[in-house]
């Protein structure tokens, strides 16, 4: 097993890169777990991040500010144009509400408009929701006022009425299997598996098949088949170890052994790992330097991640992009993953198709690697052959 030992020695030198990738990935995953736990099966109202400037500063305006803050997060901002625009653009706040001077005087007047200014960056649902809240408050106060109440009475009655919220029924669905964090964890594996496996294994295999090394080994008593088998063993062992480590990491993040459908995700990640390993072997055929391998790996892993729905969900990508992405294995990996983590029973035949597609990519790349090696070998022989 001399070749195997030599393989491990070379691999040891490349390990820091793999460890850095894994460490950063797991640290980010842990961060996400700590930030967001899944909610239970009850309705939770979406909270907006609002900054309020109360120019009126009366009991009525303060009452409106209290109402806004009841179901939303109030963010304090400096009343400076640059600060406000930055906060809106970088989504620290969804909108900036200014209760204008004279608000309380015109509050009861149904014909008075522009009492409140809603400064916003976009015209989305967030902003429309804020408008709905403000209009609901003002119209309720005006309704009570028109019904013969004084302004103070109208405000207090409106507050009482507004505090009585509608109870929303949550349809009785089974709880999402494995939750969103573990879903994201498995999805992002599509990026990290390629990075870790390719940047580590490719330079090692390339070194083991370096011309001078091969010439020396060919002179030794080790049979070429044994040499290749030992390298395959070393590579397979490393790939399996990396995959297992990620699976253990996922189980730790989840807080226990995988259950139910998540085992399918484990199988899915295994088939993708096989693809990543095949890719590493193909790249190794070109005897690239570690810098070149790094560049190619980044382009392939980032490209597939952006095209196939790893970084941005497939549902958000355009039809044309998804059509092109079908020719990439990450698409099938993410598709299977989304299917597995969707609600209800997973479509096993669809998931199996996705797995088969990934395996087909892995096998094709494996065959390509053999073909390249054969061609290079034949090319080498031709060069050595004496010319007439």
């Amino acid at each position: 097993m001399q070749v195997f030992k030599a393989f491990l020695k070379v691999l040891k030198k490349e390990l820091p890169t793999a460890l850095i990738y894994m460490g950063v990935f797991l640290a980010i995953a842990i961060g996400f777990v700590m930030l967001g736990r899944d909610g239970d099966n009850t309705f939770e109202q979406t909270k907006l991040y609002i900054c309020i400037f109360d120019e009126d500063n009366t009991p009525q305006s303060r009452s409106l500010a209290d109402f806004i803050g009841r179901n939303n997060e109030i963010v304090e901002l400096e009343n400076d144009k640059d600060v406000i625009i930055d906060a809106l653009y970088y989504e620290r706040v969804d909108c900036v509400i200014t209760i204008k001077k004279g608000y309380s005087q015109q509050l009861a007047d149904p014909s008075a408009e522009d009492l409140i200014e809603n400064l916003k960056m976009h015209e989305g649902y967030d902003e429309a929701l804020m408008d709905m809240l403000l209009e609901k408050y003002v119209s309720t106060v005006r309704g009570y006022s028109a019904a013969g109440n004084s302004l103070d009475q109208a405000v207090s009655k409106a507050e009482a009425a507004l505090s009585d919220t509608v109870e929303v029924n949550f349809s009785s669905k089974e709880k999402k299997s494995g939750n969103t964090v573990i879903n994201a964890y498995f999805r992002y594996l599509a990026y990290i598996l390629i990075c870790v496996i390719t940047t580590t294994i490719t330079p090692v295999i390339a070194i083991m098949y370096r011309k001078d090394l091969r010439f020396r080994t060919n002179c030794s008593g080790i049979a070429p088949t044994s040499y290749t088998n030992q390298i395959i063993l070393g590579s397979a062992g490393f790939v399996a170890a990396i995959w297992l480590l990620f699976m253990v990491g996922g189980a730790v993040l989840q807080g226990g052994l995988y259950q139910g459908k998540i085992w399918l995700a484990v199988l899915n990640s295994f088939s993708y790992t096989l693809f990543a390993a095949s890719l590493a072997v193909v790249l190794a055929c070109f005897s690239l330097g570690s810098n070149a391998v790094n560049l190619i790996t980044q382009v392939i892993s980032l490209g597939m991640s952006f095209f196939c729905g790893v970084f941005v969900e497939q549902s958000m990508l355009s039809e044309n992009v998804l059509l092109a992405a079908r020719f990439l294995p990450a698409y099938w990996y993410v598709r299977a993953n989304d299917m597995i983590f969707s609600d209800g029973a997973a479509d096993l035949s669809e998931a199996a198709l996705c797995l088969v597609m990934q395996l087909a990519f892995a096998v094709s790349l494996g065959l390509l690697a053999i073909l390249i090696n054969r061609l290079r070998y034949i090319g080498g022989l031709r060069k050595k052959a004496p010319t007439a």
Partner: protein
Amino acid sequence: MFFHDLKYFIKCGLRSQDLMFWLILFPIALGGFFKVAFGDLYSQITDTSPIPVAVVSEKENQIFSSALESVSGSDDSFLDVTFTDRDTAAGLLKDGKVTGVISSGDKVSLTVAENGLEQTMLKEFVERFRLNEKVISDAASSDPTKIQQAVSALSSEISPVKNVKAINGNSDVFVQYFYNLIAMTALYGTMLGLKICVENQADLSPLGARKCCSPVPKIKGLSAALCGCFILQTLCMVICVTYLVFILKIDLGNRLALVYLASIAGGITGVAMGFFVSSIGSISERMKSGITLGVVMFLCFLSGLMVGNMKGVIAEKAPWFNKINPAAVISDCIYCLNFYSDYRRFITKMLTLAAMTLIFSALGIFMTRRKKYASL
């Protein structure tokens, strides 16, 4: 001699495949990926198409029906209503075809399958209806003669809210990824800065050793190398911005000449930063390369290259850092050109870049000069 050194530095730089890949091809590839991923996202998040909802009429409720009619029926309506029975509605909700199911009977109720903004808006709609009912019933019990006034006050079309758009420029939040891509490309100029250091430090490369033996004053060689790097980086920045604006059609505002200027200034700062960082200590080229790239990527991360609203988070927790982070300053330059009609903030940012370039270059030269080696 200065021009001789300059010419050969530029030639060597252009022939360095690694450098040209990271400085030209990688940003081009990443820009393409960003375009694919984020191209349609903004239109999706600002899409206010009607919310699909199933309505189950358990009992005739004329008032609610007319309320529904007023908010549905056209493309710019609030709701896209499907009237159906309870079982079908449950099926539609389960399949994700509708956002919620509103049941109208004696009491209007809402059922949803998940939390979200659209669901919250449906809740607001139902709540508003029940609130109006309550106001009218309260008016009826206190003073029936005022019911009509209360109804007209509640159904008034006059909005008390004045909506104001914060800016006139391109408010697509995903464009910030392209601002940061330009900042990243600019800071990749650190690799060129590192090249100066490696090629002038005798203990890092044979070329450095030969240069140290040559009679050319070091300041002359370093100045030529720095100028060469600035020229190469300027070329890379021009290619990057041109590709984003004219090939990918990214809207970087209508002051394109200043966008080019800011990007070039950022690139020059990147080179100077690389020169300074790699001048520190006598560690190997690989380590220096790792450190400079690590620093660059960390600065880009804090500027929002990987997480879009990171700059906002930093502005909240440590606003001073955004003022000294070169990546944030470069992306801010382009951001202000898009959002502000005046040049006050842009000039401040450009002056910051100029100051950084001067400080980094001066410190780099100071640390590289007069180095003596007992043996190599």
